[in-house]
């Protein structure tokens, strides 16, 4: 069939890409779709940067106050601010996937998408691409604000920052894909889970405190989170001036598992939705 000139010869309206197992054009089309949505609404763009900016301002002033009253914060002024900014990478990464998927549910567009040549694995790739763009738009302005207001640059973490950012956003994507799958399978009744899922992990991710503060029984769970190793690694640089490649490696290896589980879960929920006939009648 793929060699039939009637179907995609030079006179056909279609191209060979229409039949390709993976198409960057289809993924790009979905990124374009979310880009149009973002471009068409300035409140959405402002909202992306709003919360990271507010967080930096609030935690920045708190840090300044604590620095005057605590030797720990005198030693490592940027620990809290770095934690706030990196947490937002994780949070925005997850939300970028979940919210973009929810847009399809809210607009009742999934039926059209999945009767088009879009493959079920191309949608998650588009979702994580737009999540990356949204995270950059949201977090980068806040990092410059931290420099301007508090004379603290997260870029002082050096190349390790790239590793921290990558690990956190991948973990966010994995959770976002699982949540998108849950909403696909259980409908918009599960929407609130997509908003709050990441917060369930926050207390055991060691964002603002070392993991050894946690009760012993929960530490193995914390160790299974890529984010825990990222925040430990961040404190190691800022407090001890030591880069811990072992922590970065642990986070990366865990993320290989996480993102694989994320894609597998989305795929399984998608199949369940096809069996139950949910794709044509999902909505509010």
């Amino acid at each position, binding site marked *: 069939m793929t060699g039939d000139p009637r179907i995609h010869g030079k006179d056909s*309206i279609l191209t060979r890409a229409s039949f390709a197992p993976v198409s960057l054009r289809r993924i790009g089309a979905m990124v374009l779709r979310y880009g149009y949505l973002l471009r068409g609404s300035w409140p959405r763009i402002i909202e992306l940067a709003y919360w990271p900016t507010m967080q930096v301002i609030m935690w920045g002033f708190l840090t300044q106050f604590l620095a005057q009253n605590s030797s720990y914060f005198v030693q490592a002024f940027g620990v809290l601010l770095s934690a706030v900014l990196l947490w937002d990478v994780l949070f925005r990464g997850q939300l970028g996937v979940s919210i973009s998927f929810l847009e399809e549910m809210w607009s009742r*567009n999934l039926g059209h998408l*999945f009767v*088009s040549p879009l493959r079920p694995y191309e949608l998650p790739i588009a979702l994580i691409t737009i999540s990356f763009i949204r995270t950059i738009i949201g977090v980068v302005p806040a990092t410059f604000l931290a420099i301007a207001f508090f004379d603290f640059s997260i870029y002082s973490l050096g190349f390790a920052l790239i590793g921290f950012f990558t690990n956190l956003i991948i973990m966010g994507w994995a959770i976002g894909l699982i949540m998108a799958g849950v909403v696909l399978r259980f409908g918009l009744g599960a929407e609130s889970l997509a908003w709050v899922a990441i917060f369930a992990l926050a207390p055991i991710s060691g964002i603002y405190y070392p993991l050894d503060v946690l009760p012993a029984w929960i530490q193995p769970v914390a160790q299974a989170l890529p984010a825990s190793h990222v925040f430990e690694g961040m404190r190691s640089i800022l407090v001890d001036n030591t880069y811990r490649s072992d922590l970065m490696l642990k986070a990366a290896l865990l993320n290989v598992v996480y993102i694989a589980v994320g894609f597998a879960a989305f795929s399984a929920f998608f199949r369940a939705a096809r069996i139950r006939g949910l794709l044509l009648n999902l909505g509010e």
Partner: protein
Amino acid sequence: MHESATRAAISVENLTKRYEKVLAIQSLTFDVAAGTTTALLGGNGAGKTTTIAILLGVLLPTEGRVSILGEDMLRHRHRVLPRMNFSSPYVDLPRRLTVAENLRVYAHLYGLRDVNRRLRELGEALDIASLMKRPLGNLSSGQKTRVALAKSLLNEPDLLLLDEPTASLDPDTGEWVRDYLRDYQKKTGATILLASHNMSEVERMCDDVIMLRAGTLVDRGTPDALIKKYGRKTLEEVFLDIARGRGRADEPGAVTTAAQ
């Protein structure tokens, strides 16, 4: 892009879909000849939407086989999806995107060779050129229907599945849509399968009618042949006979075929 008129564009064999304890369709078997316009009729709960969803590949059957344009839909649906399309008033396009943005996204999803040219062609043909920069959510029902039709024709589909293509349209716009679809079918030789509750629409548009009741095929034929067979004046009366279990085809599962 034309299919041979003698080939089946759709071939369904022993199709069954069970949702836990509910049997939505049962042992459905039928062919739709390429180049024809066929109606899938039945009352609420007859199995039309389930059948269309399976044909589109968004619903997996419990049993049975589906072949579309010569491909096994259950195993190789992505070989066929670029050559078919779908429109339904119950499945929306994103309302915050403009008409042009919506059509552009889908044009790329279908992998069109020349997106701008196709958008210009459809804009002109469906009289939506002046709407291109307007958000979809701001359009009237008739305008939305024309945009949905444009989306469904973007890839010049060989097979077009339409769910109530003129629902909620005024008679004038409804007739305009029917004329356009008839012209499209004539020009391209495409196959059209439509589900509709508008019997006069079916009489005017369709070469063939498949009647469903309680998930089974209960009768089939041309509109004229069915009207004659049931001794009625309109297809609507035939529909009521079948939906209420009266007339000649009143046993679920009793498949009869009216002479064509």
